């Protein structure tokens, strides 16, 4: 199946096209999506940990559509990048670690989202919510680090 993914038209185009609009642009979009996705998540996490504590949590609902856009871009470009070298990534332990960290980061956003949507003028942040914010910061940090290190760990 990994070999089949690599032989699809899309994967071959990414591998063989010399155009900067092929692999290079997909990789750059993946980086831009990361900046939007992780950056917006961190702004919310900072609020939960006490930066801008006078602002009600409901004022942070904008974070989730922004995160969704970044996530969409990165799932699409991420799948393309995976297909390009499916046999390499599918069998590399550091890649699987990165995937677990990304899934954990996104999973932490789910309870954060339902909490921020539920509360209207709330400015209080419970201890549990703060723990989730710390988990979110750490999980994204791990995912970004693992992603960047793939270039060196999986040559």
């Amino acid at each position, binding site marked *: 199946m990994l070999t089949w993914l690599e032989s699809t038209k899309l994967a071959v185009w990414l591998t063989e096209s010399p155009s900067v609009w092929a692999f290079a642009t997909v990789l750059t979009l993946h980086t831009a999506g990361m900046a939007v996705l992780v950056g917006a998540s961190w702004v919310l996490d900072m609020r939960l940990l006490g930066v801008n504590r006078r602002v009600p949590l409901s004022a942070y609902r904008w974070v989730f559509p922004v995160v969704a856009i970044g996530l969409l871009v990165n799932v699409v470009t991420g799948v393309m990048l995976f297909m390009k070298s499916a046999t390499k990534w599918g069998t590399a332990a550091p890649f699987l670690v990165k995937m677990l960290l990304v899934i954990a980061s996104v999973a932490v956003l789910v309870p954060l989202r339902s909490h921020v949507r539920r509360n209207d003028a709330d400015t209080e942040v419970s201890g549990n919510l703060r723990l989730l914010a710390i988990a979110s910061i750490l999980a994204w940090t791990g995912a*970004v680090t693992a992603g960047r290190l793939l270039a060196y760990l999986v040559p």
Partner: protein
Amino acid sequence: MNLAHLHLVMNHVPTLGAVIALGLLLLAFIRRNEHLKHAGLEVLFVIAVLTLPVYVSGVAAYYEIRERPDISVDTVRIHQDAALIGFTLMEFAGFVGWVALWQSRRRGRAARRVVPAATVLLVVALAIMARAANLGGDIRHPEIRAAGAAAPAEGDPERFITSAITEVAVYSTWVWPAAEAVHFLGLCLSFGVLLAVNLRILGVIRQIPFAEVHRLLPWGMLGFGANLITGMFFFVGQPGQYIASTPFYWKTIFLMIAGANFLYLTVFGKAWRHTEDGNAGFEASLADKAMAVSSIVAWLAVLYAGRMLPFLGKSF
């Protein structure tokens, strides 16, 4: 025109600019004038931003002229080391000056010791930059060397700071990848903060008072600081691959634009008047919105040029 010319055009900016900033700050102390103080700090910030292309073009100039028989490579390297220390101190001074501007915007004036600290750092940076400039003059103008002063001694490459950094960049297996990881984390942090600030100005986010997104700026600066340090490590470690790279110059140009934008976001006044009374729902002017769009575009361009370095140029 090549980059050596650009270096010759720009190389007096750090010293002359530092003198102007220092003059304004000293005058502000004597006259106890807050406006003069802000002007001095703003000039300091701009000079700190402009010192980056001065350093970069200097390295490019070295690559242009190093093959010539009448150039002493060691003279250049001694100048380069002094310039790197001067650059580092100038960035520190610029950073502390920026903190003073940020505090002034929030509370009407900077905390008690911040402006004096920026001034002292600026004096030290100016002294080292002046030495770097003097050493730079020696490269092509031995006739201006002080009477009796010997030519700089032939050096052992181990002695140079820049060679030591290259050594680490080339021979350590983990320092370069670790710096790359930090560079990406810093990118996320500064981009997230700038996105929040600019989306607020654009009105995409409405419920947060502008004063509150302004509070996030130091976090953006933290991310940028991490990226300036790691980015300079890459550049000093492997200058050849960046000097030969077109996207690297685009990245530097867009960083200048983004820096100007960042200063505007830190000090501009209109949004504040509307938010001091807690009025969160103000509408920014069209000019401010244009500034916000240009800020997002400039940072995306920095990111794009940086990520495309290996593909449009030959660097990695």
